[in-house]
């Protein structure tokens, strides 16, 4: 992953979560009854969406963690290569 991609990634992930969180608030405010629907397993949308937001936060955090670890590995490899070239 390049340096600019590494810098952009957290903002992209933040944007994704912001959309999910914003969607939750908008549904609550303007389509409240949707939250009472039970789309799956007899559990309503309010619970699915609430759990979804928490799980999404964890997943996005892991994605960032893995990408960050890759970036660190890449950046730590660069000086070694330079030393070899000396």
């Amino acid at each position, binding site marked *: 992953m390049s340096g600019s991609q590494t810098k952009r990634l957290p903002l992209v992930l*933040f944007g994704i979560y912001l959309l999910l969180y914003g969607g939750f*608030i908008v549904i609550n405010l303007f389509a*409240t009854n949707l939250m*009472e629907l039970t789309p799956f397993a007899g559990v309503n949308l309010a619970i699915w969406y*609430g759990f979804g*937001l928490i799980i999404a936060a964890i997943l996005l*955090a892991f994605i*960032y*963690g893995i990408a960050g670890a890759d970036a660190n590995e890449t950046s730590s490899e660069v000086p070694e290569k330079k030393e070899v070239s000396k």
Partner: protein
Amino acid sequence: MIYEPSVLAVVVFFAFVGVTLGLSFWLGGKAKTSEGYFSAHGQIPWFINGVAFAGDYLSAASFLGICGMIAFYGYDGFLYSIGYLAGWIVALFIVAEPMKRLGKFTFADALNSKFNSPGIQITAGLSTLVVSVFYLIPQMVGAGVLVTPLLGFPHWAGVVLVGVTVILIVVTAGMVSTTWVQFLKGSLLVIFSAILTFMLMLRGFETAEGGADGHKLRTLGPFTTKTLADDLGKDESTKQWTLIPADSAWEKTPFVRLKNTEGAVTVWKKEEAQAGKFLLTEAQSLTKTIEGTVIVNGLIKGNKKGEPELHPVGHISKLPGGKEKTGPLGLLSFFSTLQESEIILWPKKVIKEEDGATTTVYYQKPTPGSQVLRPGEHPRFKGIRSNDPIDKLNFLSLMLALFCGTASLPHILIRYYTVKDEAAARKSTIVGIVTIGFFYILSLYMGLGAMTSGALDVTNSNMAAPLLARSIAEWLFAAISAIAFTTVLGTVSGLILASAGAVTHDLMGHLLHIKMNDAEQVRVAKISSVIVGVIAIILGILFKDMNVSYLVGWAFSVAASANLPSLIMLLFWKKTTSQGIISALIVGMVSSLGWILLSEDTFTKVYGLNAEAAWVPFSQPGIVTIPLGFLVLITVSLMTQPKPDKPEP
């Protein structure tokens, strides 16, 4: 309710205090320099730091408050869980790594990294103090609220006990001991919450006619309004009752008072039945006379087991398919079963009697599970179901403050200085998110479990989680109670350390121009910790009778309004100036505080005035004051741009 102190809870709590204090004294040698005292030399392993984030963040408000709110109102308490966790996304993606890169000891260090401005250091230090004190008060009051039922001590003793313990922890080894206390607390909280949830699933649901003390809630009737007085006493079920005529305080309420043959007065709620008739369902009442006598359900409240007390409540009246018991439940069938059930909730109504006494009536409200599991039932979240745009703005403002507040809390931000580098800051935030997120998922199960446990105390929603544990096993109650206490210890130690850092590092050096060497800084920090700790103890005792749960909301709003705009703009806008940051800090702090002090919440709960007298249209300031902070920063920064160097001739 009458609580008998649990010996096991006392033993577990003091064992934890003993271990943490022993650890603190043992680690004391690592905090002899200011770097050791404030940031543990940046040598805390990222995993430990991540769990310590959870220990720092999951305060009494998170553990006791959210479970209690869910237990009494249903899903709405979970909205706090969602908002509190969402704030960590801002912390991870925006704040974590720059905070580590830019700062040294305090939040002000990071803000001031590019400017070396005494003004930034002083205003950010003041903001840290204000936010930390607002956060400290509910924690200390929470300690007092917990200690009375759990350990049998008076309120002040709980506050002093927690205060002294925390001062010792912070003074002995600063951030090193604070981190380990928070790590222990965070681990125990999540592990035992998981055990509690697992045992709750194993138990499943069952229908009941009352609470865990075996008292079956009675229903009388049907009656008609005209013949109620005559109908009472006609048959075996009503012969002991006589109707008390309604006076001006009671006539417009849905309640009637009946006196039994022994003279005890009980309160009943009228519930509509068929053909214009009504039933009387048993309510509970708690009266405080002007002489200070407390009467429960018509009898003077007792102090020991077996003496008059309010009954524990919270039960399922109907399960799907007419079942009486479900057996063990799964993670999803827990909700789907509840969705199809009927649950007895316990709202309250306060009645001012003609003789000056105050009676609080707690009454049964049979509620469909589908309603319990939907948002918008709690008065604080009425905006969800209201058509009034002001109510909707209030909800939006609260959710915005929760989202923006976490990454602006000084006691959370200083934890980024305890790890060695930015990668460790990132990894520890991820561990924090996983730990906190897992706990918040459990909070919904625990809250709903408490709601249907038959163990709720109608007068104290904060006790919902410990009482749920008691309804399952005494040892679990002891463990959860002790953890509830340690919840306070962990958060308070972080807040005191953040405040001491602000006083020593930001204010004394830059406001009072006192130069200190390293050893003096540590000494002053320890003295500051003691002073802040003593102030926290005093405030915890003074605010005893005040509803302080919303002070955490104040702290979030002030932190988000004062700190976040500066932090974000410093990172993302090159034209930010020191004057812009100082202005945004001051305007954000003053405007959010001012808004809160002039809001309906404060008018009714603090000043005791009418809600209509409030000066601002809704209670949550974030939606106005957070953008205001950004606006002020941009405007002032543009006005104070450094003049470009004149081109050489």
